[in-house]
């Protein structure tokens, strides 16, 4: 095993059997992957493809039928390796009768942390995941997003070197999802290794350095995201301070033809809906009281305070207007 390899699987196979030992389903077949220190690794695949099985095998929740899995150079069944692992399950399966502080204190004890360290760490994490105001409420009263946040906090209580996240953004609103992705990037910046399973491909694309795609328990693709997604047959060119015109198109076509290529499309790029949504929410925070009104400019950029007005949309008007209430 190389020095910086944190997780390694060798022909890892899992076959589920019934009580009589008859084969029911092959969940994973001869998986060989390596995950290196400091990277964010994505496990992708449709439902039942074996990604959660892989995670459970790595955590020792399941035992392999064949092959081996090593985490920090130790077999996956070794309890000692868990000292350096943080795990956020798909559903945040925590004890609902505990509040946030008690939850973190409990998991801190499982890491044998002394009381003072548990207290400090719990406060720090509760602030980090934004649950300070709700820290005394039992988890049964939490929304799914809040449970996911406290779940993440418990996964970080031991300051782990390897964080395994199963569907970390599921159940989170776009703000929460962005927060989660930012946090994953922060963890990478700190030199931590992150493994994440997700259905949300855009999330994986946003944060993962490398991915493995599984289907029917078999590895289909494996490598760096950029390399895998790169389309070598096409070239993308971006420019600014230009007006779209027929002249420009013509000149470009001529230039490209000269180099043996052809122009496919030309136009203004669009932002992602996520970016647009986040910008709207951020700005609404900056302008408390502002609300959506039809027929106004979409996003006034000035700080000017305007009197509230109610304008009914006129016939045929399709644009939207935003107004501030003073």
């Amino acid at each position, binding site marked *: 095993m190389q020095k910086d390899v944190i997780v390694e699987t060798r022909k890892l196979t899992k076959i589920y059997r019934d009580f009589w030992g008859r084969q029911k389903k092959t*969940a994973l077949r001869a998986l060989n992957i390596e995950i290196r220190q400091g990277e964010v690794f994505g496990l992708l695949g449709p439902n039942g493809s074996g990604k959660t099985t892989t995670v459970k095998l790595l955590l020792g929740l*399941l035992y392999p039928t064949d092959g081996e899995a090593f985490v920090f150079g130790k077999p996956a069944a070794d309890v000692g390796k*868990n000292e350096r692992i943080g795990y956020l399950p798909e*559903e945040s399966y925590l004890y609902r009768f*505990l509040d946030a502080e008690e939850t973190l204190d*409990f998991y801190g004890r*499982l*890491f*044998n942390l002394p009381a003072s360290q548990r207290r400090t760490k719990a406060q720090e994490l509760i602030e980090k995941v934004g649950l300070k105001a709700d820290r005394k409420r*039992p988890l049964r009263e939490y929304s799914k997003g809040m449970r996911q946040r406290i779940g993440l906090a418990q996964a970080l209580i031991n300051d782990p070197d390897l964080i395994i996240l199963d569907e970390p953004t599921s159940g989170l609103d776009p703000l929460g999802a962005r927060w989660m992705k930012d946090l994953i990037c922060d963890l990478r910046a700190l030199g931590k290794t992150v493994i994440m399973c997700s259905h949300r491909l855009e999330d994986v694309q946003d944060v993962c350095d490398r991915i493995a795609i599984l289907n029917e328990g078999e590895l289909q693709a494996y490598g760096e995201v950029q390399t895998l997604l790169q389309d070598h047959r096409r070239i993308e060119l971006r420019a600014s301070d230009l007006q779209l015109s027929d002249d420009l198109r013509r000149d470009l076509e001529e230039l490209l033809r000269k180099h043996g290529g052809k122009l496919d499309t030309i136009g203004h790029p669009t932002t992602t809906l996520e970016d647009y949504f986040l910008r709207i929410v951020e700005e609404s925070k900056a302008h408390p009281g502002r609300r959506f009104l039809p027929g106004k400019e979409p996003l006034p950029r000035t700080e000017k305070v305007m009197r509230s007005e109610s304008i009914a949309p006129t016939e045929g008007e399709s644009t939207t207007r935003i107004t501030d209430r003073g």
Partner: protein
Amino acid sequence: MFAVLTFDRDPVQYQDVPAQLFSWIQSAGGWAAFGVLVWLLAGYTRMRAEDRARIPVWQKRVFAASVGVSLLAYLIAGGAWLTQYVPRIKAETAIATYFFSLIIGGVGALAAAGLPFAVGLSSLRFRRIWALAKLSFKEAVRNRVLYGFSAILLVFLFGSWFIPYKPEYQVRSYVGVVYWMMKVLLLVTAIIVAAFSIPTDIRRQTIHTIVTKPVERFEIVLGRFFGFTALMTLVLLLMTSVSVIYVLRGVDPAAAEESLKAREPLYGTLHFENTGNKEKGTNVGREWDYRSYITAASPNQEPQYAVWDFAEAPSFLADRDSVRCEFAFDIYRTTKGFENRGVSCKFEFQTAHFNERDKDSYNADRSRWLSKGGLFSQKDLDDWLDGYRTRLTNLSLGPLELNERLDKKRLRLIAQPLPGDPPQYRLSDAAIEDELAEEYGYYVVPAKDITDYHTLYIDVPAGLFRNALQARAGAGARPLLQVRVSVTQQSATQYVGMAKYDLYWRLDDPKSGHEKAAFTLNFYKGAFGLWLRLCLVIGLAVALSTYLSGVISMLVAGMLYLGGGALDYIQSIAQGTAPGGGPMEALVRLANRQVALIPLEDSTAATLATSTDVVFRWFIRRVLDLIPDVDRYDLTSYVGEGFNIPWTQLVLDCGALSLYLLPWFVAAYYLLKWREIAGPT
């Protein structure tokens, strides 16, 4: 009947421990051997080579050696068993070889099965177990489990409507009802809470966030066990405290006199004289043969005696004024007798130093000195001391000791001089009895009326104990102290029934005035018996739930507990002493319409049935190892009848429970360790 403590089996004592330990090693070792065999066949053969390679070499060696020793010992045991068919070999040798081989085989199997468990114990950390215990505690409290316990309020509020209020039953009834209610509430709650905890964790997947921490899986078992035990302990303490107030509050004085105490009995051994059998008295035909009966002398019958021998007595009894001897006998009347009169019995108390020939002399001295009206002249005392000197001379004592004893007696006799000339000395009747008891080692109550099943007592002068505890010169092999009971001629046609535990000395001082406090302490000791049963069901349910689902764990734990209640009957089936035999024999009897008590006729079917039952009994004996001895932890009768629960009993019960639960916990260790916590989804 009240304040009578009966024992179906003798109370446990330290000297029974080795035998019980050997028996435990044999049965637990047998199960361990079975477990190791199953693992070798089904587990080791399927183990992947890389997993086998990870087992440390020293562990492999110790395991192999233990299995080898065990196998060899079991082979020898099998050979010894077979020798019963070889007439040339002595049966004792074969039995001893069989017995010790089973022990050695058991030790080997236990070592093999317990090795990974013992190694695994070193990884356990208290802080994690504590965290899991606290979690279990909080879980039960916050899920409002405790609300169920408020049902006991029904007893406190309305119990007196239904509990029989006859004064002599009061303490027993109240104690019985509150213990029963506590038992039902606590055991049912404990078994449900404990059986469902781990399966619920697995079903809800909350266990995933625990086992992915550096937690040994056995810590979860221990955490659950300690958490629920702590919770139930607190509830039990609270309920016991409220219950003891409820029992103490308004108890009838007559009932308090009988049972609101904690007698500390000193039991002796019982034998009979002139009954034809030393072990048994006369059989009066009662179905329950717990007691044996004696009757008075008749023209062709010597007087029958029930004799209690006491080999030891603590020296502090000699420092009291008197020592209480309590007894409760059963009466079997063959005639109506006298109206409102009991059966008259003679009680003789004698020490090892007592000489039968001195009986007349004792009686003469006793009537002479008691007739003095409590006033003694110097001459009386000199006469008394002269008589004493003569008897001491017969004992061949050294001159120093002889003079010392005489001097001490003189000082006691002249302790209360009266003013006047010639000098006179006062001696109370009790003091005279005390002196005579010490002098002769004898005390007699010629006629004591016995009433059926009522606890009565005789305050015996402590002088008897001073005599008994003197140096044992010339006492030979006689017991330190003897109590001889016989029926007097006054009640010639009546029978009095008695058992070993029906007569005892009170080690506690009945006149100390601390009886209520002693009862209260005893009440808590009784609750300790319930606590042990709580630990038992919690341990069982948690251990079972590591493999079985919640409902099944609850049912199995409940069945085992209830099976413990019927242990005696199951034992009688296992040993083939139950009337009607085993299931096959019972089937033959059913088919032939034969009653259970008549021996089977010789036939092929009968032979086949009884032989099949031998195999069946072997299986029942193995199942018997799994069933807890629940009754031994039930101490209610001690408290209800007003008898102190000996600390020995509590300590040994703790030990017995630990030994019972240990194999279950070892099994739980492996079951949870080998189990895949996550499922296919």
